[in-house]
Every structure is written in structure tokens, then in C-alpha cells.
């Protein structure tokens, strides 16, 4: 499969690189964000493309991709859910929320571990992972679906219905 970055995406990337007049390397995160937003995840080709774009060795990009939990190396579902796991949300029922979301979307999390935090539904429509503190501790439990944020989540059916 050939890796093709559309012209509109590349021009957005080129514009972002101008935000770092001192060092192009600083643009690693924004370039990766833009590619992940377009492709859904960061493939080996995306890493190499980023390295070439910023005149870096690919390892300098790969080490960034593998460090940050916000970067994914495999495709998530069409709708990617992040449930806050941390204390205040856990006290407000985030583990129970995770269970009901998995039941509702038919996701099995039994294979999840630190290196494979994301679980996918069989039809590939939904994926889910626990996130550490989403900084909305007063309105837990909270979650995100793609870039949408939800607080005080209690009605899982209504939440999932919004994502056909």
C-alpha cells in the first residue's frame, strides 16, 4: 500500500512547521498529530515521511511515537473512546462506565495491557481505552469519543446512539 499525504494535509503541516522558526525538530509533535488525525494512526510510512519532512533520522520520530500515549501505531475504531481511569472519576464510577461501554459496543478488553491499551469491537466501529486524568475531576465519570468530551456520563445508550 502506498503512503500518500494529500496536498491539503501537507500544506497544513507546512504551515505548522513555520511556528517553529528556531528548530524544525520542534514540529515533530504537530506533524504527527496532523498525520494521525488524517490516517487514524501512525504507520511506519508515516514515521518515515515525518522524518524526511523534518530532516531527521526516523528513530528520532519513532522514539517520540512510542513514548506518548496520545500516539497510536495501529488503527483504532471509527469512533475511539477514552474513559478517564484516575481517582476522582474512578470514585464516580469510571470502571463501571468502562464495563457498560464495552458491553454496549461489544468490545472484549481481555487482551489489553500496557503495550496494547486499545481494544476494538469486532466490526471495527468502536475502540476503547482507559486514559489517565482528563482534568475534569469535578464532573466524573468523564470520557471522550474522538474529539468530543462528555462529563457526568450515566446514559451509555444515549451516548453511543450519537455515533452511528
Amino acid at each position, binding site marked *: 500500500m502506498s503512503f500518500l499525504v494529500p496536498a491539503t494535509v501537507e500544506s497544513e503541516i507546512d504551515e505548522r512547521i513555520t*511556528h*517553529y*522558526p*528556531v*528548530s524544525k*525538530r*520542534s*514540529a*515533530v*509533535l*504537530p506533524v*504527527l*498529530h496532523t498525520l494521525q488525525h488524517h490516517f487514524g494512526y501512525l504507520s511506519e510510512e508515516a514515521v518515515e515521511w515525518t522524518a524526511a519532512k*523534518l530532516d531527521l533520522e526516523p528513530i*528520532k520520530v519513532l*522514539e*517520540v511515537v512510542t*513514548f*506518548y*500515549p*496520545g*500516539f497510536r501505531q495501529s488503527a483504532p475504531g471509527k469512533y475511539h473512546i*477514552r474513559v478517564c*481511569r*484516575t*481517582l*476522582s472519576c*474512578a*470514585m464516580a464510577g469510571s470502571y463501571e462506565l468502562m464495563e457498560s461501554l464495552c458491553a454496549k459496543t461489544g468490545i472484549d478488553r481481555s487482551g*489489553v*495491557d*500496557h503495550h496494547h491499551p486499545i481494544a476494538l469491537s469486532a466490526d471495527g466501529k468502536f475502540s476503547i481505552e482507559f*486514559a*489517565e*486524568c*482528563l*482534568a*475534569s*475531576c*469535578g*464532573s*466524573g465519570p468523564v470520557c*471522550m469519543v474522538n*474529539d468530543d*468530551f462528555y462529563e457526568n456520563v450515566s446514559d451509555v445508550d444515549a451516548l453511543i446512539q450519537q455515533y452511528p
Partner: protein
Amino acid sequence: MSAIAYKSGREPHAREHRVVFRNIDRDGWDPSLATALKNGAYEQLNKALTMEPTAVTDEVKKAGLRGRGGAGFPTGVKWGFIPPTNTKPVYLICNADESEPGTFKDRYILHQDPHQLIEGMVIACYAVGAKLAYIYVREEFPEAATILETAIAEAKKKGFLGKNILQSGFDLEIYVHRGAGAYICGEETGLIESLEGKRPYPRIKPPYFPAAMGLYLCPTIVNNVETLCHVKHILEIGAEAWANTGTPNNTGTRILCVSGDVQKPGYFEVEVGKVTMGELIHEICGGLKPGRKLKAVIPGGSSAKVLRAGESFTVGRGDAAKTIGLEDIPMDFDTLAACGSMAGSGGVIVIDDSRSISWVLNNINNFYAHESCGQCTPCREGSLWMKKITDRLVAGKASPSDIDTLDSVARNIDGRTICAFGEACAWPTESFIDKFRDELVADTKPGLETAIVNAESLTAAANL
């Protein structure tokens, strides 16, 4: 200024003193420049540009503003650390990586009042001589990043940013830089590494302050969102009047974020030190849930040492020394430090008697094990072992001696790492053991004394 109306059900509590949160949840408010300008935005920038930059720093020093991100370090003093002989470019970074569990204040400023932050940043940049600044915003705030970029574009169009700001001859560009989900990026030197496009491994100290050597090895000021917002209010009412709010050495207002077992969790901007822990919980947050008793409070984000209900603390010196209980503690920097904890980021987590202390500690340990950057061995290995041991504890597979092992692991991390994450991850375990040892031991199984060398117990529930 006419009276401000707030959205129904979102009105500030009568004990609040809203300065930075003046426009949060305000009726008819939106994050646009037009709305901000109708409410006096950028007037303080205009004033600042007529002052000498050092006079702006002096005002911030005189006000006694202390950083709202966690350490409580005096902001004006930090600005003053830029070497006077410096010839390199100076940078300013707004730390909007809000990640400390229990903290949720910057989120509302970024989403609802971006121009307050931008104005504070332009004034701060003018004071320290920065011509390039970044807002490092956490990846989990995608909407905030968009709102900030829109606000920056609006401000630039009106001449509040860019070349020759308001015809003063001062130039400044601000860009938004999104993180990628790592707590360690809240540590200022880790943040700088991240902004340089690298793994966010915190830098070895000294130099202790990026003001000496920071981004691209140039003098760099890193300030929290709330801190930078305060700068414009200091200029607006004057350092002296600003310092008259709050209490001596703990001046101004700050936002307390309360979560956990209270009736009405939320964010409350109060004068520093003018509200006690008890008033915060019982009066402002509507008290505990029916039939519950207060068990513990984590007062300044999850890294802060836990305080136990019924504990007594000696505060004050000499003739002023007195013994107080948990609910008598005034919410300020110095008293919380005297009580052996810290005001930290203002995130107050309330724990009632329905909670298992082992479960709470294990949740915290899972967080730190996930977020250790892995650079220093004591923290990388220790945070994981603390998680594994408390995983065993909540699974009913820990032996009584595990609590001693846990204690020893924690005390071998703190003070032995490059950055303060070592303390952040060790303090919860150290303080929970100091204050709740009996309860932790009660969750162990005496028959499992040899379990520690059992392969199954080593890996049980430890799928990290």
C-alpha cells in the same frame, strides 16, 4: 462594571471571590474577542506597554503572586532569574498541560476565556523581553487548542499580537503546541524537551530554573495558565490592592478544585487562606454524602501527601504556634506545608469512610506507574513495584510484610530522581502508610508470608 449574571445553576458560591474566573459560566459570555473587548480586554496590555518592562516585573513581585501550577514559587522572582547579562533570545511558555489528578481549573479558562490568558501572556512577555511564546496545551483538550488558535488569530488581527503591538515597537508571536498525553510534560524541563520535539525526559538540575537555560538552551519562563491570567489583574488594581486579598505571603485568590465524596464538587475561586478545609467541604461543597464520615483529604493534587481526619497539626511559630485539626486548616500555601502536605495545584480530593484506603492508593499508584518517563531507575522500577504491590493488596493476595516492602520502595525513590516526579509518586504511598498503616495491613493475608516469592503473586493483576 455592571453586575455579572451567571448561568442558572452555575452561580459562584457566596464565599467565592472571582477574579480569574470572573467570566467563567457567565451568562451571555463567549470566547470571542468582541465579547472580551466589551469587557475591558487588552486595556491592561495598553497600560503595561507604557511602563518599563522591569516596572511590570516589580509589580508582580510586589503583589507576591505565587505560581498556581504546583510549586507555589514567587512568579516575579522567577522572571528575575533571567541573567542580566543575557544576550540570547528569551522565550515564554504557558504550561497548559493540566494533568495533576484532582486539578480542573485551566480547562475552563482555555475553553471560555482565552483572551484573558493571551493578554496575561503578552504582558508577561513584554516584562521578560520574550518575542516568541508557546502555549503547551495537553492533547486531551483538542477543542481548547482550536479556541486558542482562533483567539490568537483574532488578537493578531487587532494588533494585540504580532509586529509592533499597539504601536509600541514590541513584537510577539504566540503559538499553540499540543502535547500527546504524557503527564511528565507538566514538569517544566520535560515540557521544554517535548517542545523541542523529543521525548519529554526532564533535564538534570542545575540549572534549577529554565530562566537560566531553557528552550533551545536560551532563557525561558514557564508559567501556569492561572498564574499568567493573574498578571493582568495585578496591573488592573495595582500590586498593593491585589496583595490585600488573600493573606500575608499567600496573597491573591486561587481556584480550588474539589472532587470525590462531597455533595457538590466543583471549582471555587477564593481568597488564599481565607477559607478553611472544613468550610470548603461543608459549606461551599454542600458537605459529605448522607450518613458518611470524613476519612481523608488529598489537598493539592494526587501527589500531595494525604491528611487524615482526626489528625492534629501544629502550625505557626513561637507564641503563634497552635494545634489544629484537618477541618481547621486554612487553604493556603504555608499552612498546608506546615501540616506536612502542600497546596500544590489546588486539587482537593475528599475521601469518606465508604472508601477502601488500599483501593484509593492503588488507583494513584497505577497512575504514577503509567506516567513515569522511565529515565531514572528508582522511579521507573519503583513506581511499577508500588503498583504491583497494591494491585496484589486489592486482589487479596498481599502479605503483611508487603506493606513494609511498599514503604521501603517508596522511600528509596523520593530524593533520588532527576525531577520531582520521584516525590510525586512516592509521597502518596509514604503518607498513606504513615497514616493508614493498620487499614492497609488489615487488607493483607497473614497466611501469605511466603507469597512474595511466588511467581503467581509477582505477576498477579500486574498486567502493566
